[in-house]
């Protein structure tokens, strides 16, 4: 149960536009609105799942919060401090508090560094013995033996590498961990191990997660609340149980109906979407989902619906869902 408390992270109207080369220079510069006015909060120790299909901007949201990329607009607050107002050196004290685990543990670990240095890299100004002790402790925490300290990443399997990447992220005791498709590259039997590890760490260390994934079942399993993104915007945000039991936005409905369920007797109403997502350029008119929406009305094509609260801690961006 999530208790109402001061937010750890608050994201307000976050925007990230990428210029798209088109036509004559200087005339009609087009922008790809990868993230367009995204707002949400994360409480301390809470896991917010951010789910959507490829190109919806979910990774860019994570990277913008950590300032791995500079947002075009909007504000990000961490424990009340506006990070978006800080730069360079002033941002540095906040960096250890916010860490990230990437999807592919084959490319996210420097192949020339041994585990001791990989995991201990963030521990600056710590003497070598202390550093070794801290690294050993964190390795045990993620289920790895201290014997691996002097080994290189290529000696490990995908699951073990992902444990190393997690150890590297939590050694600084962050308050927020962004998991960007952190279990997507793993086989199911290993994926379950890593999910269970993340749940254990969350309980032990009170870390909040921004859990970014395209896999709805994984997101459902790990998140307290879930935000569904489509073409750069949040379409629906709700507590996990309510979202999956009763999705309100037509896109959420279609997304849930599309996931294959491992039960041959499972009968469902398939809400097959026609077509595919548009490109994220020039979408200033109407709801972004309208072209694929089976319920779209005239108004949906002309006017963009606001993201409104509909009670029960839910917000939906759709004209067809009545606000409270």
């Amino acid at each position: 149960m999530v208790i109402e408390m001061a937010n750890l992270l608050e994201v307000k109207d976050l925007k990230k536009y990428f210029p798209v080369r088109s036509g004559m220079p200087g005339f009609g510069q087009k922008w790809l609105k990868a993230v367009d006015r995204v707002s949400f909060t994360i409480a301390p120790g809470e896991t917010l799942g951010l789910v959507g299909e490829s190109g919806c901007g979910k990774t860019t949201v994570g990277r913008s919060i950590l300032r791995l990329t500079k947002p075009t607009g909007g504000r990000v607050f961490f424990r009340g401090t506006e990070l978006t107002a800080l730069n360079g050196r002033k941002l540095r004290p906040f960096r250890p508090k916010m860490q990230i685990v990437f999807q592919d543990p084959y490319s996210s670990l420097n192949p020339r560094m041994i585990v001791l240095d990989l995991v201990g890299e963030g521990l600056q100004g710590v003497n070598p013995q202390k550093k070794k002790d801290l690294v050993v402790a964190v390795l045990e925490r993620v289920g790895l033996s201290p014997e691996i300290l002097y080994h290189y990443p290529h000696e490990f399997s995908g699951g073990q590498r992902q444990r190393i990447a997690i150890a590297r992220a939590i050694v600084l005791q962050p308050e927020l961990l962004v998991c960007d498709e952190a279990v997507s590259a793993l086989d199911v039997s290993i994926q379950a191990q890593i999910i269970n590890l993340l749940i254990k760490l969350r309980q032990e260390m009170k870390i909040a997660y921004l859990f970014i994934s395209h896999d709805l079942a994984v997101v459902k399993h790990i998140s307290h609340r879930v935000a569904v993104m489509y073409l750069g915007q949040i379409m629906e945000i709700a507590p996990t149980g309510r979202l999956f039991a009763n999705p309100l936005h037509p896109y959420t409905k279609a997304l849930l109906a599309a996931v294959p369920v491992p039960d041959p007797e499972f009968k469902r109403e398939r809400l097959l979407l026609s077509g595919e997502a548009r490109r994220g350029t020039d979408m200033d008119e109407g709801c972004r989902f309208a072209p694929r929406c089976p319920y779209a009305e005239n108004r949906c094509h002309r006017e963009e619906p606001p993201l409104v609260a509909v009670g029960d801690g839910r917000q939906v961006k759709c004209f067809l869902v009545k606000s409270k």
Partner: protein
Amino acid sequence: METALLEVKNLAVHFQTPGSSGGPGGVNKAVDGVSFQVFPGETFGLVGESGCGKSVTALSLLKLLPTPPAILAGGEVIYRPEGRRPEKDLWQLDHEDLIKLRGKEISLIFQEPMTSLNPVMKIGRQIGEVLRIHSAEKAPTPEEIRREVLAMLDRVGIHHPERAYEAYPHELSGGMRQRAMIAMALICQPKLVIADEPTTALDVTIQAQILELLKELQISYHLSLLLITHNLGIIAETAHRVAVMYMGRIVELAPVKELFHNPLHPYTLGLLSSIPRLDREGELKAIPGMVPNPLHLPAGCYFAPRCPRVMEVCHKEYPLPREAAPGHTVACWLQEK
């Protein structure tokens, strides 16, 4: 009992691996004694985690693996097209005859259409080429080919067939490319389609479209489908019978309902309880440990080091497949009791 369209018997495909950085090389038995049948109009699923040998099985059926490094170590691939006797062993056919079969009677759909379509050839010509090559007796005119390709593009749900016909693969979206790939696989009206992770590279809403399309085409063309995937959800929704592979061997083979409701092999059980699901709550029970090194396989059952119900005999000898129920075979010592 109906006769199988495809009968694979004791298939073995090995890879000679060179030693790396001073380490010794060895023989990787990627596929080791795999047997199954595919019946007319049936979808047979082959499921397993990466490295279990499911894709190698699929590619080796039509001898599509480069040899070396692959070694077709043994087995038979019996193909019985309806009403035509005698049956053929695909592995015994000479190259010319095999080429005539590929794409015409047995075709393939790969995971990533961007890498399996020719990037410098327009979609229409690529599909038409299959038709042209496989029309043995009387060559169709370019107009006939064009008409048939357009009809097929329309059939697989491409909205503007003329536009797609003139497009290069990179101009189409992922879902449209996979539809074009399916059109290419079906243009000669094959009897068997081998689909290797056909939707893995696609978004979930597009995946649902493609799976629906495959199911619908299967019925209307009475296709047999050999579906290779790592996704148990896709198996549950599309396959009629399914085989679970682990380390190059089939550990369990059963009708799909039987497998999901009465899984008997501890590995199958482990897989089913380690996937997060939308229809259920509860803790994930991960399979402990990891897959063994294929060059140093354990002495007995390959799953024994990770198995929660391991017994002494499991470390000594690999169990033979046993029929636990009609059509349901399991290779596990627990069945011997």
